[in-house]
């Protein structure tokens, strides 16, 4: 396999202007398939979630899943699209074993949603508008596994195995208009766009939106043109770029590769490229050919879908707050700085903090616990912070114990560990582990006397006005009480005892 020449990204940017385009396929999380009542479930035994429709048997008739249509309309609305008053399905004809019918049921000239946009916020807050051409309904294909040859690659494979469980799973394909003007931020925009689409469909509850499972899949189109030229260059289409990081890397790589091709005076070949995560590069798939003549025609077995304005408005009324707007609202309500809020979002604890605040904690207390204690423990345990097992109620309870002076912050983290170890509620653990702060002054005074007697020179310094020396005595008392004293109260008592003003 030959390695393609590339220019550095900086040089490519100096010479050329990138134009992007994306096709994002979203698998819907309906209970059943787009056109059959077989279950839409990931990861089951091969060829068990199929019936005669999914296998394309002769004489069968598809029936449209109403929930899938509603999910598609919701996606269209969330992408600020117009929803077609009437639309229809079409057959996309091709021979390939992932499609047992020899056609994919899709939409062609009448997509259910069209003419939308999505405002994408980049890392530094710059907002970039991506225009949406269309979002249409279709069905997923079966899954092929290539056997023999080199490590599951089709090149040199001896045969392929087909599992049709995925065949007929409802898909919405979201197609952008050409994205111009991104310049050197093209790779970042690519990643942010796919992240935004994923977030939207997840927020709508219409897809599980797990990229690692292929619920959201991206084909990235890249072309370059010399600065100042209006006409687009020839594009490549990099298929199945299936992580956010890979989207960024693939766009960057294709820009660098195209730039080298153009620099050499050759034309870019319009072709499919395959992304390889291991080498972070693409290889040539197949060039566009006359085999790409799909001979679309209206699906005769399905009647048109008419989306009455009443139905569309009913669905619009069910839409949750858009994720970007929600973030903005929460940031203001909580009074976090830009940096604090970004850290919270990146750590994936925004929802948890919102729930904790709703349970009665202040914004600062919620952030302190989630960011300061739980995120780190979740990282060690290699789970999402929300899945670690800390409920908002636990945090509210812990904080109350601290505020009431029953335990100090250090003990609170031990109590948290106890909660995670399944020892019970925070109050139970304080009891069982004997963690209560010593608040009875009697034992404290004894310990203070002992500490003062042990360090008479320090006691003398404090009496002489060197109040900062008090740390040594406080330390002695804390040690004697095994950390169960309230350090602030100890300090007060020492000063009182020595007759010094704090």
């Amino acid at each position, binding site marked *: 396999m030959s390695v393609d020449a590339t220019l550095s990204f900086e040089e490519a940017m100096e010479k050329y202007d990138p134009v992007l385009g994306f096709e994002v396929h979203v698998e819907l999380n309906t209970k059943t398939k787009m056109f059959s009542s077989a279950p839409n479930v990931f990861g089951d035994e091969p060829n068990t979630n199929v019936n*005669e429709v999914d296998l394309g048997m002769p004489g069968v008739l598809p029936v449209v899943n109403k929930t899938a*249509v509603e999910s598609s309309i919701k996606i269209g609305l969330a992408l600020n699209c117009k929803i077609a008053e009437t639309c229809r399905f079409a057959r996309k004809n091709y021979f390939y074993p992932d499609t047992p019918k020899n056609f994919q049921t899709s939409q062609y000239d009448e997509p259910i949603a069209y003419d939308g946009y999505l405002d994408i916020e980049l890392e530094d807050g710059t907002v970039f508008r991506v225009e949406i051409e269309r979002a249409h309904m279709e069905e997923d294909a079966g899954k092929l596994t290539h056997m023999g040859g080199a490590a599951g690659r089709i090149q040199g494979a001896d045969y392929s*195995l087909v*599992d049709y469980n995925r065949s007929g799973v409802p898909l919405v394909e979201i197609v952008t208009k050409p994205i111009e003007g991104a310049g050197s931020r093209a790779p970042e925009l690519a990643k942010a766009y796919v992240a935004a689409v994923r977030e939207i469909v997840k927020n709508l509850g219409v897809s599980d939106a797990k990229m690692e499972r292929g619920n959201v899949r991206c084909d990235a189109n890249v072309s370059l043109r010399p600065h100042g030229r209006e006409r687009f260059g020839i594009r490549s289409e990099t298929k199945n770029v299936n992580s956010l990081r890979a989207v960024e890397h693939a766009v960057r790589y294709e820009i660098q590769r195209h730039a080298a091709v153009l620099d050499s005076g050759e034309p870019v070949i319009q072709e499919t490229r395959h992304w390889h995560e291991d080498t972070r590069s693409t290889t040539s798939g*197949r060039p566009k050919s006359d085999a790409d003549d799909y001979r679309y025609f209206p699906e005769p077995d399905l*009647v048109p*879908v008419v989306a009455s304005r009443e139905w569309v408005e009913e669905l619009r009324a069910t839409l949750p707050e858009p994720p970007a707007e929600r973030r903005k609202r929460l940031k203001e309500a909580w009074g976090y700085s830009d940096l604090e809020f970004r850290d919270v979002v990146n750590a994936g604890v925004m929802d948890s903090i919102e729930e904790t605040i709703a349970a009665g904690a202040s914004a600062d207390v919620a952030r302190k616990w989630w960011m300061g204690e739980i995120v780190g423990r979740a990282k060690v345990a290699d789970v999402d912070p929300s899945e670690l097992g800390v409920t908002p109620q636990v945090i509210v309870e812990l904080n109350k114990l601290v505020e009431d002076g029953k335990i100090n912050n250090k003990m609170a983290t031990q109590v948290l560990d106890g909660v995670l170890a399944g020892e019970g509620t925070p109050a139970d653990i304080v009891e069982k582990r004997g963690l209560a702060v010593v608040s009875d002054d009697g034992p404290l005074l004894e310990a203070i006397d002992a500490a003062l007697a042990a360090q008479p020179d320090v006691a003398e310094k404090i009496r002489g006005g060197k109040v900062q020396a008090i740390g040594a005595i406080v330390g002695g008392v804390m040690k004697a009480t095994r950390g169960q004293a309230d350090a602030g109260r100890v300090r007060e008592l020492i000063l009182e005892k020595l007759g010094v003003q704090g």
Partner: protein
Amino acid sequence: MAAINRDDVAHLARLAHIEMSAEELDRMAVELAVIVDSVKSVSEAAGEDVPATSHPIPLTNVFREDVVGHTFTAEQALSGAPDAFENRFKVPAILDEG
């Protein structure tokens, strides 16, 4: 007149995976041209006030509720397969990733 020529027929035959001899291509080009012309006369009959239709039945929104129905077992699914392996259909490797 003929909206379909011999090259079109050869192209369609290739797309449809149908092997056709030179003689068959010649004959089909003529026959299909007649058929296309006949269909064209139908579209001429419809005035501008007649909307295009993809379906002869005036029905819309035939939907199914999202409720799980019957499925096949893997054995049933594969019962008509020419070849199978580990509960999956076994097919020749095709050098084309779709």
